[in-house]
């Protein structure tokens, strides 16, 4: 078993280092931002926004095939810029639709759930109706961590660095405006502006990272660790770091499991299960400290 583990690590170092580095960067930033959605009782936005980015990316593929003649047997993929544009447009359309629908804030989560289903359905149909159905349908379902190349890795690392810096600088304002909007106003913090700021950070993460690693990877890391750990975490100070630890541990486990010779599991579903397992373990440890 030890031999197999070492072999998997060697495989990651030699062939999949770009995907591994991208996943680790997202595993640090996504749970951190997901905490803000969970604190606002809007965890379903963590489902909807990455899926909207995935749908936008599928629309970019569809439009590329429609506007430019591509070889039906071996279609050339659109450029990274077009994919990013599609994903960002998808995020903007999704968030715009949610905010435009307005209504009672308590139902925003349910509306986000519907948006997720619509985006998922539209994404599948767009791939089915384009020449990329075989090449990308599978990847869109399972993430494309193992095919990340250096330019994609750099894009993910730069995005995550910017988002981490922004979230670090504004974390107090972001959480006070989520916890007690009235107190936030007295402290000179505009709650609506910071809600928009939260959506902007998550929109950027999805718009720029989903085209590289796939929607499932981002939504798993945004949603699972903070949602599982909310009830176990003793304090706000511990909430985000604990979620990040769970995300990183789950990601490392998923990548290693995916690269072992006997298992060879696809990265998307493996990530979901391993991040959930890591979150439950971190939650159990946090509960242990909380009851002491």
């Amino acid at each position, binding site marked *: 078993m030890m031999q197999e583990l070492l072999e998997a690590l060697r495989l990651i170092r030699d062939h999949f280092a770009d995907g591994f580095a991208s996943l680790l960067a997202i595993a640090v930033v996504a749970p951190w931002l997901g905490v803000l959605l969970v604190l606002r009782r809007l965890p379903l936005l963590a489902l909807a926004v990455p899926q909207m980015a995935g749908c936008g990316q599928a629309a970019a593929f569809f439009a590329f095939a429609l506007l430019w003649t591509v070889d039906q047997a071996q279609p050339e993929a659109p450029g990274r810029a077009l994919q990013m544009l599609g994903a960002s447009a998808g995020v903007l359309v999704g968030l715009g639709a949610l905010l435009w629908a307005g209504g009672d804030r308590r139902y925003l989560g349910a509306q986000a759930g519907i948006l997720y289903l619509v985006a998922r359905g539209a994404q599948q149909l767009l791939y089915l109706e384009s020449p990329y159905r075989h090449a990308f349908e599978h990847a869109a379902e399972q993430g494309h961590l193992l095919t990340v190349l250096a330019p994609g890795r750099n894009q993910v690392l730069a995005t995550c660095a910017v988002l981490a810096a922004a979230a670090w600088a504004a974390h*107090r304002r972001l959480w006070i405006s989520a*916890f*007690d909007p*009235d*107190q936030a106003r007295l402290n*000179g913090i505009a709650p609506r502006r910071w809600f928009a700021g939260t959506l902007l950070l998550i929109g950027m993460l999805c718009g720029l990272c989903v085209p590289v690693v796939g929607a499932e990877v981002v939504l798993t890391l945004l949603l699972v660790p903070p949602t599982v750990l909310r009830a176990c*975490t003793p304090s*706000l100070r511990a*909430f985000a770091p604990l979620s990040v630890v769970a995300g990183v541990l789950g990601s490392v486990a998923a990548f290693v499991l995916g690269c072992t010779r006997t298992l060879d599991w696809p990265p998307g579903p493996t990530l979901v299960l391993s991040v959930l397992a890591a979150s439950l373990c971190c939650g159990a440890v946090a509960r242990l400290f*909380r009851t002491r």
Partner: protein
Amino acid sequence: MSEPRPFQLRLAKLEIGYGTHRIAGPLDRTLDSGAVHVLTGPNGSGKSTLLRTILGILPPLRGAVGGLDGRTASYVPQLATLDTGFPVTVEEVVGTGLRRRGPRRAARERIRAALAEVGMAQAQRRPFSRLSGGQAQRVLLARALCADAELVALDEPTAGLDDAAAASVWDLLSNLAARGRMVLVVTHDLQRCHAERHPVLVLDGGTLLERAG
């Protein structure tokens, strides 16, 4: 805690409400600092709305609130309006009262002192969600103290408290007023207000009246 210069809060033809729905007004009144002003009235008369408008949380429909420019204010809301399921400790809740957090050690000291003043020093690291209603109310009061605000507004701070806890809250408010703060309290606990000789304002039928002791 530094003593602020005396000031006056002026309500000038103030109309309050939400959107285009007017709840009360026009209201004209001048209130002095260094006193506890009690605001009472029937349910739905607009007491909490008035408090939130004075603090600037809600915009006035017409008229103005004057005298608070550059003054700091803090607010103790009704407990039911807060998300008590939030994973947050008592220390973190009190810390939200600080406008600028500043050096960590100094902030901790202020938080500790405020909690000691309301008798909750031992609960500093406890989850806020595990407190009883009365304890949570005292923690919110500590947040207002921590802010060292010149205007302290409280919305039914003694609701759900037993007699002893309510008496300690009123003592604390009188103490704040004695230190030059303006304290505005929405309450139905009029017996205690009369015993303490606090001025009482009644908001009823859209107008603000002074009630004789």
